[in-house]
């Protein structure tokens, strides 16, 4: 359990670093971001493999659905092994989520997503920060909005990642979290209202000032500034995998649209995570609790009560685990 908390903390710190690197002078430091992404990956692996099954279930269903077997490619004997306890079989890993949330099926896909492109996912967050807003709930949205606007106003001019971001997209735009690759099928079931797609102005961004250097995916071209952070949602690459995964449904009833949802939900998770970034931005560093609350309000459209929870850490394991899994 302590490992999980530790991993949790490290993940949040890492994401904060990646976020801050985008507004640093001189552009993104590839080396540092690579190292941070490695830490992020290690922490994620520990997080997923730490055997703490039912402790922090917050959902109504209360029974963790065993996740599908992790891919053999998953280095299960990787960093967690060093902790002295070999990671348990993935099936026992922490999947506390059983609420009938649309993201659930994608949760099972997500490790693969993460495995495939561990580095990318990190940037995926960044991309969403740049391009995607949207949370499920209005409350979260307004919370997110203000710091974003502040950040955007501050980082005037292309020096910071926010500055280039079209200001209009913040307040005026309806929340939309199309992953930059624009892959979200329009039929993505609704965790998020998506009216006017804010993808349109993204091309206008052209070369965002500080795309996550770790993965300038699509444009691959010229390095740090190499292309807009055209990292499509992590869902793009491993699209095939979830299909296989569906053979063992992680939780009931979502198989049909699992595949469709997968991209959308991963993006959803990323945007949720994005809102937690705002938490990181506006709160003092290490204000883990507050971030989690802010982030929780994202997916928990159906559970508004959780926004002001008594045991933020345990509760927040829920959305955190799903978000982390998304990476």
């Amino acid at each position, binding site marked *: 359990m302590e490992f999980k908390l530790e991993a949790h903390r490290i993940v949040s710190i890492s994401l904060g670093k990646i976020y801050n690197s985008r507004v640093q002078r001189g552009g993104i430091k590839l080396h540092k971001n*690579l190292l941070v992404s490695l830490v992020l990956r290690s922490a994620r692996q520990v997080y997923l493999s730490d055997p703490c099954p039912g402790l922090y279930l917050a959902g109504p269903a209360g029974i963790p659905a065993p996740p599908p077997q992790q891919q053999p490619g998953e280095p299960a004997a990787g960093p967690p092994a060093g902790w002295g306890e070999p990671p348990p079989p993935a099936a026992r890993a922490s999947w506390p989520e059983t609420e009938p949330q649309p993201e659930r099926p994608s949760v099972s896909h997500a490790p693969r997503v993460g495995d495939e492109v561990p580095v990318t996912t990190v940037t995926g967050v960044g991309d969403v920060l740049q391009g995607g807003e949207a949370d499920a709930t209005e409350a979260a949205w307004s919370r997110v909005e203000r710091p974003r606007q502040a950040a955007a106003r501050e980082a005037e001019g292309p020096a910071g990642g926010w500055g280039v971001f079209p200001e209009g997209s913040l307040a005026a735009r309806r929340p939309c979290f199309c992953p930059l690759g624009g892959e979200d099928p329009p039929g993505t079931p609704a965790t998020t209202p998506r009216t006017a797609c804010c993808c349109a102005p993204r091309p206008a961004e052209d070369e965002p000032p500080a795309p996550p250097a770790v993965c300038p995916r699509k444009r*691959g071209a010229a*390095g740090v500034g190499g292309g807009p952070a055209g990292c499509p949602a992590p869902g793009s690459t491993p699209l095939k995998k979830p299909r296989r995964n569906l053979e063992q449904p992680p939780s009931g009833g979502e198989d049909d649209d699992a595949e469709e949802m997968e991209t959308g939900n991963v993006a959803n998770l990323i945007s949720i995570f994005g809102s937690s970034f705002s938490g990181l931005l506006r709160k003092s560093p290490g204000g883990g609790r507050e971030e989690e609350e802010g982030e929780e309000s994202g997916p928990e459209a159906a559970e508004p009560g959780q926004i002001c929870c008594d045991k933020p850490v345990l509760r927040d394991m829920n959305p955190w685990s799903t978000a982390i899994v998304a990476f």
Partner: protein
Amino acid sequence: MARRAGGGNDIQWCFSQVKGAVDDDVAEADIISTVEFNHSGELLATGDKGGRVVIFQQEQENKIQSHSRGEYNVYSTFQSHEPEFDYLKSLEIEEKINKIRWLPQKNAAQFLLSTNDKTIKLWKISERDKRPEGYNLKEEDGRYRDPTTVTTLRVPVFRPMDLMVEASPRRIFANAHTYHINSISINSDYETYLSADDLRINLWHLEITDRSFNIVDIKPANMEELTEVITAAEFHPNSCNTFVYSSSKGTIRLCDMRASALCDRHSKLFEEPEDPSNRSFFSEIISSISDVKFSHSGRYMMTRDYLSVKIWDLNMENRPVETYQVHEYLRSKLCSLYENDCIFDKFECCWNGSDSVVMTGSYNNFFRMFDRNTKRDITLEASRENNKPRTVLKPRKVCASGKRKKDEISVDSLDFNKKILHTAWHPKENIIAVATTNNLYIFQDKVN
């Protein structure tokens, strides 16, 4: 007078000078980012975050004051790089000087290469101590005379003037690096040099600025597969075809340019297997090599990672021949160091002139020396307190845990904002330059 050769512990290090502002409030532009002696040791160059280069010159030894070697005084100051803006990528390019490398002296002028993240410049530093006087058509202040007023002719002559040191950029090597330049290294042929960024190494000719050869390219076709970056590179001091580069994964690759035009395949790979008992979240970060330096002899190379200094024999690839722990007490603090970003600090290391002692920096303004022969090490502090010229430095000790003895400092009271990243050792003498955040300390061995 016999000077002891090497011997980090046989030497008694004395405070000599400190350069820089006294106040605690450090202006960001004043943060020293590189320190380098020239080949004779007479000149000492520093670069800072504000893009300036300051060169100090050693006074000629005063026969009367034989108790100390010449002091270093400011010789030249110039703005090497300015902040730039890449409009295409909307990226600001910092003016911080990442590295300075001196060229060996060929004539009266001195030449050095200085680089920021993107552009390398060759600077000529020359002295002017005479000026022509007695022009026929010009007044002394430069105004032109009316030719009709000229009634006699004279030959202009050179007259002495106050020494003026001028720095002028002779070459600008730009637009060859997409990523941030971390190293430059001049070849032993003194005609070419390499520059390395995170993913590529380019070979330049000092005379040619409009093109360079790419000799190493580790950029994967799919950036998602990126797993390591280049962290430092250096030419071999004697073999003009050999260079090494270190990676963020803790490996060093030695390449031979005769083997192929693109040296993606190494000739030798130096890597020490990881100790599994030390595995943690941060193992990868602390194994990243921050500096690599060949010994003067060319037989060994030294690498610096976060916690240790390793000496490698070029003939043995599977493990270093010597490993020195710089601040092992930090191993249990890696998480906090990750949080405050200290774990990403890039410490440099250096050899003394005889390759018998190596030196590197640490926190709390401490720096460490390791004597390879006696296997002894010493920790010293660069501090203005209690430091008068010729005061012998007192060895320091950090207490990792448990009872703290008198004069020891506990790990928790170390100041992690006071870090010594850049140090340099005079090529011939026991004179060292140690850069704290914004001050440059010069220490010498005690001269009897």
